[in-house]
């Protein structure tokens, strides 16, 4: 049980994909200007990552090493397509807000990285826990960033006014510079809480 917890917590905090591994930054910077977008992307990646991790851990031994990347991509693409169609069917406005970035989950290096380095060599249960940890860590990073950016940039959370009507929006927070600034500051906070051991 302890091992399960450690695996999960590593993905969530110590090896957080965004704050520690610096992966998936393109999506992180692009869609975190609203909390709703961050939550949607977090859930979508959670589903894709856990599902494809599970599948890859089952077939990992039988896939020849030479063709493993195309096979992994096919598995990921299948689940991403499911998410994409699901969003279009039931959450059209969110799907439009995220635009191409849902489709681009296929190329997200967090997912391919977990499949390549963990799922293909570990048991289905461990892969599932690892994927859940990393995906939760990613969602955590997205939500943390989008809360700061939406709060300062629009004065709202989930579109609901929270900062009062006289709030002056910080336009830079909605734009790219705000994304970089908030990302840098949050990485700083995360590293201040648990410092990196320099090699």
């Amino acid at each position, binding site marked *: 049980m302890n091992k399960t917890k450690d695996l999960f917590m590593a993905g969530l905090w110590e090896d957080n994909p965004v704050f520690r591994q610096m992966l998936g930054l393109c999506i992180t910077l692009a869609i975190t200007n609203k909390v709703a977008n961050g939550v949607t992307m977090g859930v979508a990646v959670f589903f894709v990552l856990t599902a494809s991790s599970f599948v890859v851990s089952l077939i990992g031994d039988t896939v020849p090493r030479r063709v493993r990347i195309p096979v992994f991509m096919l598995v990921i693409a299948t689940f991403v397509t499911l998410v994409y169609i699901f969003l279009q069917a039931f959450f059209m406005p969110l799907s439009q807000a995220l635009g191409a970035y849902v489709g681009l989950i296929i190329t997200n290096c967090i997912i391919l990285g977990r499949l390549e380095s963990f799922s293909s060599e570990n048991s289905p249960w461990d892969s599932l826990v690892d994927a859940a940890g990393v995906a939760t860590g990613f969602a955590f990073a997205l939500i943390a960033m989008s809360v700061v950016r939406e709060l300062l940039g629009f004065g709202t959370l989930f579109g609901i006014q929270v900062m009062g009507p006289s709030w002056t929006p910080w336009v*830079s*927070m909605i734009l790219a510079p705000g994304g970089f600034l908030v990302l840098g500051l949050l990485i700083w906070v995360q590293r201040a809480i648990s410092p990196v051991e320099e090699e």
Partner: protein
Amino acid sequence: MNKLDELMSDVADYTKGHPYLQHITEVVETVRAIVFHHGEAASESPFLRDYIEIKRYMFAVVLAVLPATFAAIYFYGWRALAMIAISYVAGGIAEVTFTLVRKEEITEGFLVTGILFPLILPPSTPYWMVAVGIIVGVILGKEVFGGTGYNIFNPALVGRVFLTISFPVAMSSRWVPPLTGGWAGFTQYSVDTITTATPLGVFANSGTLAPLRELFLGTIPGCLGESSALLVIAGGIFLMLAKIVDWRIPVAYLGSVFLFSTLGMFLWPNQVAPPLFQLLAGGLLFGAMFMATDPVSSPTTKEGRWVYGVFLGVMTVSIRAFSGYPEGVQFSILLMNMFAPLMDEMVMTFRYGPVQKPYK
């Protein structure tokens, strides 16, 4: 020794041994050192003929912007002074917090940033924006790089640009006309807000040029400290004569603006304003005298400084003429700050051969 000096020295000695108060020892000693500048005397050669260090340096700059500060109060009322006070308090808290956490000495670098920052803001900037800007400037412009002396960018300009992109309405379209005649701003707290445009903004929109005499004296809307060209030039000349700043940077910067706007005026007469107007309008003089010459973020070699100044001029004229912003001084200086180390390295390579890398 002065009585007050003795008292402060006693306070510092007392707090040093105290379990809780020892953290403020640094603060007391800094204030004491600022007020009663204790030059250190060497007992062996080499003997310095002139003892110049960061404290004296920073004080000279503060002294040099005082005329422009008085002009700011004269034109825009005592609110200008309130903005400076807020900048000092908010930025000072950020600065002291960092030095205490890092257990470093408090340096005087902030004294300059704290006064330059409000002087490059529009007179009607809300107080909380001043505080946000200076805190962002101190933390993101200086402390994240390691504190005074390690910053790549000019901290005051980092704060200014952050405000420019965050609050475009407050920072670029709410200009107020200056007060003139008699005691003007010395008898008022603030200017009743009447939105106007800066001379550069007017030129960008309609091509009308403000009279040079008004630009020179400062009776035109603009940022707090930049309006009066006369007093800014006076401060700049003082700094150059005192050898606090190198004359090469302002001369190269202003010269290249003159040259390239003369050139541009013939090539694109509708977009490039005439050279004298370019020199006197907006924040160019203030930037050239006080911001581009910042010893930390500008090149240290003579040749590097010439090149730096020339590129600054090209960029300022280009941004003014061809971009969406009527003023380009802040962006030019920040962009060129980034290239200052590269220019120094190129000069050194040219002079002494390839620079030895400390890393593999």
